[in-house]
């Protein structure tokens, strides 16, 4: 802990960034310091009874209970950037009425809010919360969170807490249990840096990268970049491509909704067989990649790890996301069920060592595998799964109308980022592909999604079917 001087001349206790924050700040600096990269825009809306005055009270109480909404950052000579908690969140919950606009007009304004920001965010409040009256009789609230202070999980936790307070005030339901202190969770993260566990995790990754065989790049584009890289380099055995992720970060999103019935089929199989839902989804993803790459059995992609196990980790806000490669080699004669278990085994093995910094992990990977180029990669895309987080509403009827919206900031730090989450009103899956427009992969992504969801549903309906049989069904 150090003492810093703030812009108004006062002093504050400050701490270095955690590993996850350092990665996020690295991403920000790598993309032309575009502030939109660090914005998370989201909203929670419903139709029916709406009590704006009570919602304002609930949001103010949720803000007061959430430490990380007060997080601010200052440059520092020793640490580069440090964090501190301001005493006052300086968030005024104002009401905005878009009810007279078209849906498109309103959505465009909310997207613009999500993109707004300054690269000079030092010492300033970073988050905002607004009550919204939207077209179509939808009402609720919009939030913009800074990615150094929140990740998607923390954002959803804040929104669920605000709704639980609102519902408690409206219906007399029990007031939600307290949130947890951010500084305690942050202190645990920083303590890890000097711990034996970190030394063990470092040794683990060093050992794995030194002894594992070389992975192979699997593309989601039909015009396969590995084939091109092999031709251009004259090396027919090349297994990687050079991906310049810093260039052209402009992005858009492609959404697909899976019906509540089909989603329930996936969830039911997982309940009955004790399988992990994200691992079923990741198996679908790797099967689609396999199909796009001549039924390749060796498939890698990046996946986001929430790193929230204990209640302290879950309820203290902040950003805890780490990104790791998930590599599996699954033979064609493996059953769908066994293949899910293989993905889960690799996922769990990564979980055991994922407190280790993402940036340091890549450094070690490059060192251990003698990788020459910074841009060398075996992962064509990144996957993240957002488990359903119960958000209470005043009545079942209102809950059926609820929708949670994530507003794309139109800048992506990665070429392709697939998020799967659950709809608020019926728990159905939403697949959101955030893609770089420079690659223009829209047509390929439509085919890719079709292969992925077909692989998932075929496997869920036929859990003993072999992966070779599933691949045959989704053949290009």
């Amino acid at each position, binding site marked *: 802990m150090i003492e810093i001087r703030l812009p108004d001349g006062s002093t504050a206790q400050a701490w270095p960034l955690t590993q996850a924050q350092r990665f996020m700040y690295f991403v920000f600096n790598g993309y032309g310091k575009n502030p939109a990269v660090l914005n998370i825009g989201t909203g929670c809306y419903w139709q029916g009874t709406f009590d704006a005055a009570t919602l304002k009270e609930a949001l103010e109480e949720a803000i007061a209970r959430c430490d990380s909404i007060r997080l601010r950052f200052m440059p520092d000579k020793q640490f580069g950037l440090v964090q501190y908690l301001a005493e006052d969140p300086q968030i005024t919950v104002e009401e905005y009425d878009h009810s007279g606009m078209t849906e498109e007009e309103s959505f465009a304004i909310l997207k613009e809010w999500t993109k707004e920001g300054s690269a000079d965010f030092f010492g300033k409040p970073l988050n905002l919360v607004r009550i919204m009256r939207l077209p179509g009789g939808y009402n609720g609230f919009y939030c913009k969170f800074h990615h150094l202070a929140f990740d998607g999980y923390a954002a959803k936790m804040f929104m669920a807490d605000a709704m639980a307070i609102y519902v408690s005030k409206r219906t007399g339901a029990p007031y939600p249990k307290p949130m947890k202190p951010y500084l305690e969770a942050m202190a645990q993260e920083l303590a890890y840096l000097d711990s034996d566990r970190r030394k063990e995790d470092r040794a683990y990754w060093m050992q794995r990268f030194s002894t594992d065989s070389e992975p192979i790049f699997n593309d989601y584009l039909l015009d396969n970049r590995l084939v091109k890289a092999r031709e251009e380099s004259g090396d027919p055995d090349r297994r990687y491509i050079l991906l310049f992720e810093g260039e052209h970060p402009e992005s858009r999103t492609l959404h697909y909704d899976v019906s509540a019935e089909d989603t329930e089929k996936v969830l039911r199989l997982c309940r009955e067989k004790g399988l992990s839902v994200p691992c079923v989804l990741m198996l679908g993803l790797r099967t689609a990649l396999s199909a796009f790459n001549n039924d390749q059995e060796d498939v890698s992609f990046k996946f986001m790890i929430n790193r929230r*196990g204990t209640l302290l980790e879950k309820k203290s806000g902040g950003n805890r996301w780490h990104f790791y490669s998930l590599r599996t080699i699954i033979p064609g004669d493996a059953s769908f069920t066994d293949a899910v278990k293989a993905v889960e085994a690799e996922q769990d093995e990564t*979980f*055991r060592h994922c407190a280790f910094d993402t940036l340091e992990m890549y450094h070690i990977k490059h060192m251990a595998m003698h990788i020459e180029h910074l841009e060398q990669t075996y992962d064509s895309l990144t996957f993240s799964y957002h488990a359903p987080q119960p958000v209470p509403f005043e009545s079942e009827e209102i809950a059926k109308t609820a929708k949670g919206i994530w507003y794309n900031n139109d800048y992506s730090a990665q070429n392709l980022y697939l998020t799967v989450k659950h709809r608020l009103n019926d728990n159905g899956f939403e697949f959101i592909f955030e893609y770089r427009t420079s690659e223009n992969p829209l047509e390929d992504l439509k085919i890719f999604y079709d292969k992925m969801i077909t692989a998932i549903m075929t496997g869920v309906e036929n859990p003993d079917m072999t992966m070779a049989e599933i691949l045959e069904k989704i053949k290009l």
Partner: protein
Amino acid sequence: MEHIIETILNYVEPDGEITGDSLLKQDCGLTSFDTVSLYGELAREYGVPENLPALRRARTVRDVYEALEAAKANG
């Protein structure tokens, strides 16, 4: 067993009571990440490896308790 239940309650806030028969995923609401973290914490306390096959197979709180006790007894 009480200690295992107390530790689980550091990870989740279930609606109902947790007993030895509670299912880790369905009743306790533990996710894969929760489970890996929980097993890591308990294994360190018991002085046993955290990726025990019996822990990987565990479906109930009692399964976890028995897996840890057996591993500890076997040294």
